């Protein structure tokens, strides 16, 4: 059932489309009307801390500020699960960092679970507990970030039994292996390795 599930979800889309002509405060009013129990005061506090003027037209804000408004609206629902669909994709590094700090603080304070979809692996490494790599329509890897970093290593060249072999930044082949290798893999290399595995052998689950 969709409706009961929605009660437990907060959502931030990739490109938060706020209402043209409505101020940020109007958006909070709107959220209060749509979502019984919406925590307007928490959302206000969050926006004020970020210096986002609540009387300003929402569409005249910068992309980062609009994303923060969308996040404040999602967090204001007090939903136990937050879905964030690539909200960082169009943000500059500073806006991204601020967004993730706000998210992490709120999640810690509320005890909520955030499911963050992102292509920016460094952000995932710094802010997420668990990593899920999706490819070819399947889950290719699902484990704690710390475990993924401990378990995977890189060995130059092609290696039998490796998760996959993929081109490193300098173009040389690197193999992602589970267990002992030449050096520990970075999280980006773990993700690259599983994505490459998914492309080469889509039938083989990691």
């Amino acid at each position: 059932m969709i409706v009961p599930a929605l009660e437990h979800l907060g959502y931030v889309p990739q490109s938060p489309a706020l209402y043209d002509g409505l101020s940020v405060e109007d958006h909070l009013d709107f959220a209060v009307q749509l979502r019984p129990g919406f925590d307007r005061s928490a959302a206000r506090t969050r926006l004020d801390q970020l210096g986002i003027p609540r009387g300003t037209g929402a569409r005249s804000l910068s992309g980062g500020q609009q994303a923060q408004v969308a996040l404040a609206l999602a967090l204001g629902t007090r939903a136990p699960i937050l879905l964030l669909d690539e909200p960082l994709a169009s943000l500059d590094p500073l806006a991204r960092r601020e967004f993730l700090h706000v998210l992490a603080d709120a999640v810690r304070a509320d005890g909520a679970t955030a499911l963050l979809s992102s292509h920016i692996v460094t952000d995932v490494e710094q802010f997420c507990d668990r990593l899920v790599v999706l490819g070819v329509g399947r889950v290719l890897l699902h484990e704690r970030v710390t475990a993924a970093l401990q378990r995977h290593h890189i060995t130059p060249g092609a290696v039998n039994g490796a998760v996959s072999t993929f081109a490193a930044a300098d173009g040389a082949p690197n193999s992602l292996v589970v267990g002992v290798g030449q050096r520990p893999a970075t999280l980006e290399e773990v993700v690259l390795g599983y994505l490459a595995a998914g492309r080469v052998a889509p039938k083989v689950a990691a």
Partner: protein
Amino acid sequence: MTAALTWARLSYRQQRWELILAAIGVGIVAAVMLFFANELRGLQAAGPDCVGLFDYPPSCEAIATRFAETSDTAQRLLLLSFAAPFGMGVILGAPLVAREIEGGTVQLAWTLGRSRVGWLLRRITFVALVTVALLAVLALSSELLAAALAPDRSLGEDFLWSGRRGWLIVARGVGALGVGILVGAVVGRVLPAILGAALIMALGFTAISMGQDAVLRNEVEPQRVAMGNASGGVDPGALVIDFGLELPGGEVVTWQEAQERGLIAAVIDEEGRQFASAADMRAGRVLGYDIQLTIPGSQYLPVAAREAGVVTGLGLVALVGTALVVSRRRPA
């Protein structure tokens, strides 16, 4: 109250220009209608015996001419009140949901809210109320203008300018608004929705008119037409559905049916009797009586109320359809 104001503000800001355009348009048309109604009433007061008559004394020439000229222009205004409900359905209805889908704001609304249908109902309310209010102004002013145009007729029992005056305009507006909203929700883009809604409304209106014509054909009453009488001896407020012949045996046939039977009238006398030829006329062999198949003027209110019920119901059905579309549609 706060909730209503929030939704009104949202709706107004989402469709500011369309609402302003509709309000200004209706305001101007209503004001011009009332001006003309006042002009016509003034002329009628200046010469009560000079208007609404075919023959008037020479002293009435100036007033009668002025009344006729003013009437010509005023009757064109009534065409606007015919078009207004469809126009408002297109410009206010079609973008209502389409703009939210196109602009992506439904993602925000649909994920914040627990019920998309609840969102839809609250989102529609303000625009629907404005539409009804504006069309009510137009309905009233068009009725006043029609009354001034035809001071000698009782318009509550008269099909004259039916659909261009009175509360039927409001009902058609509700129907058109519902259809416009549905098309917008299905199409999901503003411009194609506007074009699509205009096309569908034109086709829908044609279909309803044909349906109504078919229904009314079962309810017609034949009225003999006497050529010697200025009004033809028929109810001037009646709605003429067709023309035909009343055969000597009492059977009523339309002209088309008469032609199919080979009953071709060539001569008619002042009493409306039709003859196949001059020789038949001299011999007294009557083919039939000239008749009009009409809905009497006394049936105006029931017929208008029935159409109002149908188009309002159509609008409500369209809104139910919109609710289904909105419930199942992906937000982008």
